[in-house]
């Protein structure tokens, strides 16, 4: 991944073979939609498999189950577009709610006793603050101390997960303040609140990245930090803000997750970061920065979810399911490679 402080990555080098993808202008937009054929195929398979597949209930369930992953993918997509990466999002998902609960829950009366600090409604702002703090620390280590972003966030991944266990002793916390449970349970206009919120977040993100000055700036930063700097974009500050927003989104995902599952624990998000990357990159966001769209990333999430759902409806035997999961991911990749007509990066 490119580090914004070096100008070297985005610059092109060397003779011959400029990428052929620029030849026809139309194909560039295909990148955003390149997963749609794969998705259509999956839906067709699901439709053939079971009459219960193509139902509003099933699709709604899929959406609801994808909310946290979507929010995380939104965060990672923003970070990747700016030319960075953050592995520690996975731990922030668990850490932020646990710290919020720990501070807010009363000092006695439950299996897990908190510090009774502040009112119950403060759980949500505290949770977001924890996210912001994690992002700030990551930004400091990466941008100010010039440490490698991959290893820093890998170290943070371990440390923050460990911190959850230090705080909750490895137990699950069941006592949730009403604000958390509200998010997990309420419906607005017949749909789960989390689906609405997630939709709104994506809409805001898509608008900001498409039609807002600072959003467009992220592409410039990820595409060529040196050029962005010379054009008057505050590269370091912007990247730092993106890291903070990313971690706050992860904290928010943690809130949704806690609300939906009705509990918070260290084991909640384990291994999720792989899924996050898979969805983001399948969705066309480049690991090298500067390329990709949030809409594409969203199709990435939905594709993974569809794969899982189709395999479940297909009654693939328990022993074979992971194998087929991998196979279908690779097939989806190949299909999207040929619909977009471009080499992936």
């Amino acid at each position, binding site marked *: 991944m490119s580090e914004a402080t070096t100008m070297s990555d985005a610059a092109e080098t060397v003779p011959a073979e400029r990428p052929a993808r620029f030849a026809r202008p139309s194909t560039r937009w295909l990148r955003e939609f390149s997963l749609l054929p794969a998705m259509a195929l999956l839906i067709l398979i699901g439709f053939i498999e*079971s009459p219960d597949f193509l139902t509003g209930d*099933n699709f709604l369930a899929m959406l609801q*189950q994808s909310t946290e992953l979507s929010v995380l993918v939104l965060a990672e997509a923003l970070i990747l577009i700016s030319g960075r990466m953050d592995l520690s999002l996975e731990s922030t998902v668990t850490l932020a709610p646990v710290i919020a609960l720990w501070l807010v829950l009363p000092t006695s009366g439950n299996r897990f006793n908190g510090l009774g600090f502040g009112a119950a409604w403060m759980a949500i702002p505290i949770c977001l603050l924890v996210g912001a703090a994690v992002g700030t620390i990551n930004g400091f280590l990466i941008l100010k101390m010039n440490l490698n972003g991959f290893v820093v966030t890998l170290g943070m991944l371990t440390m923050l997960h460990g911190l959850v266990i230090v705080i909750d002793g*490895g137990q*699950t916390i069941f006592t949730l303040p009403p604000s958390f449970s509200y998010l997990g349970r309420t419906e607005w206009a017949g749909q789960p609140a989390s689906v609405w919120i997630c939709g709104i977040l994506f809409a805001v993100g898509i608008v900001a990245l498409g039609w807002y000055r600072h959003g467009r700036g992220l592409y410039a930063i990820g595409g060529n930090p040196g050029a962005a700097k010379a054009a008057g974009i505050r590269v370091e500050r912007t990247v730092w803000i993106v890291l903070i927003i990313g971690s706050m989104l992860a904290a928010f995902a943690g809130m949704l997750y806690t609300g939906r*599952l*009705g*509990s918070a624990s260290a*084991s909640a998000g384990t291994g999720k970061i792989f899924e996050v990357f898979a969805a983001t990159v399948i969705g066309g966001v480049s690991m090298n920065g500067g390329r990709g769209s949030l809409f594409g990333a969203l199709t990435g999430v939905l594709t993974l979810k569809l794969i899982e759902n189709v395999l479940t409806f297909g009654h693939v035997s328990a022993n074979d399911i992971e194998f087929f999961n991998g196979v279908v991911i690779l097939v989806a990749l190949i299909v999207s490679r040929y619909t977009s007509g471009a080499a992936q990066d």
Partner: protein
Amino acid sequence: AACGRGGSKSDSGGKKIGIDFPRSDSDFWNSYAKYVNADVKSGSMNALPPTNSNNKTDTLVSNVTTLTGQGAKVIVMAPQDTGAIASTLDSLASKKIPVVSVDTRPDKGQVYMVVRADNKAYGTKACQFLGDKLKGTGTIVEFEGDLTSINGRDRSQAFGDCMKQNYPNIKVEAEPTNWVGDTAAAKLQDALNAGTVNGIYMQAGGVFLAPTLSLLKQKNLLVPPTDPKHIFIISNDGIPAEFQAIKAGQIDATVSQPADLYAKYALFYAQAAAQGKTFAPGPTDHNSTIIQLPNGLEDQLPAPLVTSANVDDSSLWGNQVGK
């Protein structure tokens, strides 16, 4: 008063049963799945094809949604993260769908029946066995499971409490391993380098057995119990490999976690739930006790201690699978 299997032949009232397997990469759960599949195939039941949640709560939650979407009226599951399933249980309860939980006891949320051996008893049995063999002194290495799982916590806690109470002179080195064999081997090697080890308690034979034996073999410590260098080993699970090791004198005992009974009684209670039967705390007709939980009932199946004396008992599930 508990019911016997009397009603098991009758049909389950046309109500579909949805079954989710927790993972497919461990011997124990594989055996469990085999027993369940055999029972399902044998006909008497109206079960949907089982799903697999690969040790992920998320997948479990969505599998449950899918199963109920397909019309399941009873759910059999084995939530590996006993906390994170709470609101799923709540929502199932609100749809009046009873849940049978296998092996793990959900921390919160209504369950119809938990089918589970008493994990605290595992820890206590292991403690007593080792305590007796070591005659109250020595050093024991304990491979703890994942502390975020209730089974790991129960076993560790019971073992630790019992040791403290009954054998205060035994030094217990509790090593967190997250159920990873490699980590266990490394910790054991460190412990052996640091001094003598007289006993080992491994909380899961499936993952810890082979690495432990392999290391001891390399260190020439696999010697018969008569040798003073012998390290007393007790395991948990009751898989065939453990029985082989007991017969070969490599380990001394294991607690058999009855995969067959888990499967049998999971389905039994699922059918009972479909038929709307109810149970009350107390002893059952299959050598177990139903106890009251805050959020339901738990049938605590017997988990026999297996030593060289009874390792050939054909009723042990480890002697029935494969060869």
